[in-house]
């Protein structure tokens, strides 16, 4: 009975390795951000001043916010490519509303943006879960349709700063304790969702679904409902990001949010979220967004041609996934030879 207890297990080593791996990922990104920051500051001292740092945070905020929602979706083995166009349409509709009804309270702009996002998120979620259509295709179609609707609404008219309430614009540039409002909002969202993803049953079920869909069904998890919720949250946060987009840029036209979908997926994956689901945190995703933006700003500040930005971002994403793969292969191998076993799964 106790015979097996004495058998050497690779448990301890593996566990240390794996939890360290998770923590190392977030720590690693943090260190990378720091390194980029230091190098950029060394080249141009202005990079470290408070204004520049605020810009850094504001710039990363939108992608980080979208990354939070995207993480929820990707963790369930799905993907949401429609977030960029949701940002665009929500920003424009909120701007248009303020233009036609200048007296509306500022808060309403955010509520409206989130409602628009929730609407599209719900449609995505319904089609994916009810019709069992692959999310890549559904959200790609949604990307087009939403962008098309946006174009019809915009009809060539740009919303300019003049039509947006001052109070609303302040959200985009005012600071509190040196932190931009925008960043504070996103940090709160990241903290809340990050905590929830760790500590609530429904959120853990998202991980279970992505980790092993069949087992999730056998465990009685209502997969459809959970996946729907993930899309709903992703849409809602994209809608909020649209509202913030408007506050930050104080203007919007038909191109608002164009191309964000790939930026977001890149940030999330750099942040350590497995593209095939089951693992990753929203903290990692947010840090991934911050790293990408820090590099971006550092290039600008260091007077390196900003044209390097995309190339570096792409190379970073590739190295991140390649590194993950290398690490997991290494861990698997060391596990195998450590136990001498042949029964690993």
């Amino acid at each position, binding site marked *: 009975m106790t015979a097996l207890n004495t058998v050497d297990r690779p448990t301890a080593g593996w566990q240390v390795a794996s939890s360290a791996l998770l923590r190392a990922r977030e720590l690693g990104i943090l260190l990378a951000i720091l390194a980029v920051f230091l190098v950029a500051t060394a080249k141009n001292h202005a990079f470290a001043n408070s204004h520049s740092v605020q810009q850094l945070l504001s710039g990363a905020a939108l992608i980080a916010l979208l990354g939070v929602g995207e993480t929820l979706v990707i963790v369930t083995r799905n*993907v949401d490519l429609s977030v960029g166009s949701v940002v665009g349409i929500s920003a424009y509709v909120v701007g248009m509303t303020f233009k036609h009804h200048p007296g509306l309270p500022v808060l309403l702009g955010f509520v409206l943006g989130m409602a628009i996002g929730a609407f599209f998120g719900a449609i995505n979620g319904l*089609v994916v879960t*009810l*019709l*069992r*259509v*692959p999310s*890549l*295709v*559904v959200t*790609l*179609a*949604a*990307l*087009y*349709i*939403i*962008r*098309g*609707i*946006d*174009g*019809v609404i*915009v*009809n060539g008219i740009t919303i300019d700063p003049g039509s947006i309430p001052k109070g609303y614009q302040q959200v985009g540039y005012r600071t509190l304790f040196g932190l931009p409002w925008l960043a504070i909002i996103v940090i709160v969202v990241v903290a809340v969702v990050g905590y929830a993803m760790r500590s609530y049953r429904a959120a853990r079920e998202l991980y279970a679904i992505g980790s092993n869909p069949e087992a999730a069904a056998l465990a009685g998890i209502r997969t459809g409902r959970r996946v729907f919720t993930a899309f709903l949250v992703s849409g809602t946060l994209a809608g909020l990001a649209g509202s913030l987009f408007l506050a930050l840029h104080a203007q919007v036209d*038909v191109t608002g949010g*164009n*191309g964000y979908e*790939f930026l977001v*997926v*890149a940030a999330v*994956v750099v942040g350590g979220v497995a*593209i*095939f689901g089951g693992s990753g945190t929203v903290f990692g995703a947010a840090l991934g967004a911050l790293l990408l933006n820090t590099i971006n700003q550092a290039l600008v500040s260091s007077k390196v*041609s900003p*044209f*390097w*930005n*995309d*190339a*570096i*971002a*792409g*190379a970073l*994403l*590739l190295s991140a*996934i*390649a590194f993950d*793969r290398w690490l997991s292969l290494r861990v698997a191998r060391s596990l195998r030879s450590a136990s001498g076993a042949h029964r690993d799964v």
Partner: protein
Amino acid sequence: MSETAIKPPTVPAYRGEDAGSVALWRRALRWEAALLVVLVAVLIFGSAESSTFLSSTTFFFTGLNMGEIAIMALPLLLIVMVGEIDLSVASMLGLSGAVMGNLYQNGSSIWLAMAVALLVGALGGALNGLLIAGFGLPSIAVTIGTLTLFRGLAEIILTNPTTKLFPTSLTKIGVLPVGGTQLAYSAAIFAVLAVLCAIVLHATPVGRSLVAIGLQPEAAQFSGIRVKRITFVLYVVSGIICAFAGILFTLKNSSASYGAGTGLELTVVAVVLFGGVSIFGGRGTVVGVVLSVIIVGALQQALTQMRVQPEVQNIVTGSLLLISVIVPNAGELLGRLRARTGRR
């Protein structure tokens, strides 16, 4: 399972000459038939809305507009057939144009510039292939990475659009059809490539291997199919063909710029999926993709002639894409709903 055991041995082992139909084919052909109906509907709609729709000019411009998208759709079809994806196609188009433009602007011969562009395409494809087939990384993440990387390299290589005039003997492909026809050059090239692609996919061992890989990669490997090698080669081919599309795009516009074709990757994916190619791999035909290209192109022409905003075309593309995946699943959904209500 017990069925075969109970059957008396007198049941003939096979039924004479086989009907020769293939389940997959039949299923796919149904979608192609639907596409054909849609195409006819689009043509009727277009000619009802505009008297000039059914003209050779429309035909020429459809070919001109869709040419590069259509050409890039073919290697993507093969990649989706094996259950992978390539989102870097449009960036490769841009990169190839940038390489070609930079070289030509700096005095190299046009032919050398084009050759180097193709080589860059092969190298870029090899990078994708190495990471995906060699290293086993998820293609969606890899090609989002190379999408950004290739576009970034294009920006570095060619910061400003070229100003030096390309030889008019080559740029005429942007204005003139193939001699004696109304076929745009890029459309003609697409037609040739489509026929080649159809032969490879539907009639050769390699094509059969692609289907097997897409449906069940493990079974393919256990049948001696070199899954990794084939996947790698597909990405290299995709890189070369997209680079070629970049050359066409550049000549057509008589100028290279790093931003060429930005965002086209999604259109190419949409065209392929609307053509009935399953995103999970293993199911799809060249005919479907060709029909899809024509429908999307004709619809765009029709809407343009009706002076409908380009944004509405996005709605149409998106809706078509959505319909193409919902319709095949709708039957199953109805069955599920019926089963559920029946049980209660």
